[in-house]
């Protein structure tokens, strides 16, 4: 996904307002962007607080800064800079966090981003984008370049199943039809579940919805209708329960008067066994792997 990200930004390089800052990361990925932007590509060094405030100053000057780092270094370390300097002033700074969720795997807890969009969406004007596929990134970049306020872009690894017909980009997309429950999820991990879910019989197979923009808005009527019909909702996300998509959706449905017979939220649980491994390992410990999800939705 980082490759798609870099390619998409290179295509925007002629835009004179576009400035890219990195917290000293991007080796073997961002070199083409560095070459394309010249003096508008700034390695701000290992200093995320300064990088975010500098970005606010650049945005205040009428420029369009993108600030990039490994996700937790970008949203947790400089949280106050994001809050006071970017969000309070509603400045169009695009914060790009690489490695959403357990993306950095065995690198350990310091490198994981389990509460990123939840924290950031408590701030005024902030919006979060969680592309699931490489093509989402390509679609988002030109739109984000025109955004009128702060944005958090959470990058991960595209888990697009081979040959899967991905619908045209929309913040809410139905990826699979079924008569079982309704399953809604955020970001790339949903892509990796599709083949296993597709194997289920039609009566058990959930209707699967992918969400890539938060906080949720413009929830499709079709989605609400499906939830009303099945009254069973699964939510999956590689993020903590607190501040996550599941809570947002439950709140939205409660306010809309949609009642459910069951609501099951699968989410990041931190470090269940105290052991470390790949992203796949941590997902499995949280019941976010395809086999666990298939088992969960198969229980009638």
């Amino acid at each position, binding site marked *: 996904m980082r490759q798609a990200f870099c390619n998409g930004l290179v295509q925007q390089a002629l835009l004179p307002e576009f*400035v890219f800052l990195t917290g000293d990361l991007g080796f073997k990925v961002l070199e083409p962007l560095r070459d394309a932007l010249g*003096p*508008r590509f*700034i390695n*701000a*060094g290992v*200093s995320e*607080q*300064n990088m*975010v*405030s*500098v*970005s*606010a*100053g*650049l*945005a*205040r*000057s*009428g*420029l369009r800064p993108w600030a990039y780092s490994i996700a937790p270094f970008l949203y947790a370390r400089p949280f*106050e*800079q994001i809050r*006071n*300097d970017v969000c*309070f*002033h509603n400045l169009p700074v695009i914060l790009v966090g690489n490695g959403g969720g357990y993306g950095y795997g065995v690198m350990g807890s310091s490198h994981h981003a389990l509460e990123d969009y939840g924290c950031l969406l408590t701030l005024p004007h902030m919006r979060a984008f969680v592309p699931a596929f490489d093509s989402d990134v390509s679609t988002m970049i030109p739109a984000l370049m025109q955004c009128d306020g702060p944005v958090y872009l959470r990058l991960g690894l595209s888990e697009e199943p081979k040959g899967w017909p991905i619908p045209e980009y929309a913040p809410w997309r139905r990826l699979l039809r079924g008569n079982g429950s309704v399953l809604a999820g955020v970001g790339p991990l949903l892509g990796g579940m599709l083949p296993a879910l597709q194997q289920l019989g039609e009566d058990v197979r959930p209707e699967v919805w992918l969400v890539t923009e938060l906080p949720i808005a413009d929830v499709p009527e079709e989605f609400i209708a499906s939830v009303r019909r099945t009254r069973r909702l699964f939510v999956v996300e590689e993020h903590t329960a607190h501040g996550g998509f599941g809570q947002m959706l439950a709140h939205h449905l409660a306010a809309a008067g949609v009642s459910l017979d069951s609501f099951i939220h699968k989410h990041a649980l931190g470090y269940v066994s105290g052991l470390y491994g790949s992203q796949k390992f941590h997902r499995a410990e949280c019941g976010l792997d395809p086999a666990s999800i298939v088992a969960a939705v198969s229980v009638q």
Partner: protein
Amino acid sequence: MAGRPPGVQVQAEAAGLIQRAKLRLLEMHYQSKVGHIGGNLSALDILMSLYHFRLGPDDKFVLAKGHSAGALYVTLWTVGVLSDEDLRHFHGEGTRLSGHPPLQGIPEIIFATGSLGHGLSLAAGLALGKRLRGEGGRVFCLTSDGEWNEGSCWEALIFLAHQKLDNLTFLVDLNGMQGFGSTRQVANLDPLADKFRAFGVKTVEVDGHDVNSICSALESSDGPLAIVADTTKGCGVSFMENQMAWHYLPMSEEQYQQAVREVTECGKLSVTA
């Protein structure tokens, strides 16, 4: 309010201006019953020098030490940006003028500050923005001395030096006092000017209550520039000078009257002959 360094002929004017601002600052803080007067009095001569003798239409200013908002408001009042009415409501219910610089409503205030360690990076961003856009003018930023306890200040220093932001000048209001002790007692950084020099930043030291010295230093546009301004917390009011309490306390009526007397009687304020 632009580019007119105070020669001998305008020193008297500067003294009169600053005395008027100081009296208004005291009145404002007395009426509002708020503290932070000590750090406002240490910063006032710097702010007045900037706004009356240096800042031009293409220049920008960031007050990193947001707790000196009172001095900034009074300075903006002296240049006609804020009204008497605005100052009267300082710190009150429904005021435009919060205890630290506000987010909106006053275009001259580019950033709402108040948490220390943000302003210099913001100013660096503005300076870099000017460079990338090919714009003239200069960016100025006033930090406190205690603020340099913040790691982010040093991040900003590394950045502005490395990026050679030659359109950026930052000042330090070196009054030697911070929240709960003197800067030497709490986290000694003396001599701060040498530390800036060690980072490769041209640094000058001035008397922060001498308008001529401040203005001479502000005239320089040679490289990123640090101006370490030696100041006195509570400057001009004997019982406030270098007293920790005046970082926090509001004035009683008796104290206010004494402060007004001292400032009024001190005809030679802020200007050297």
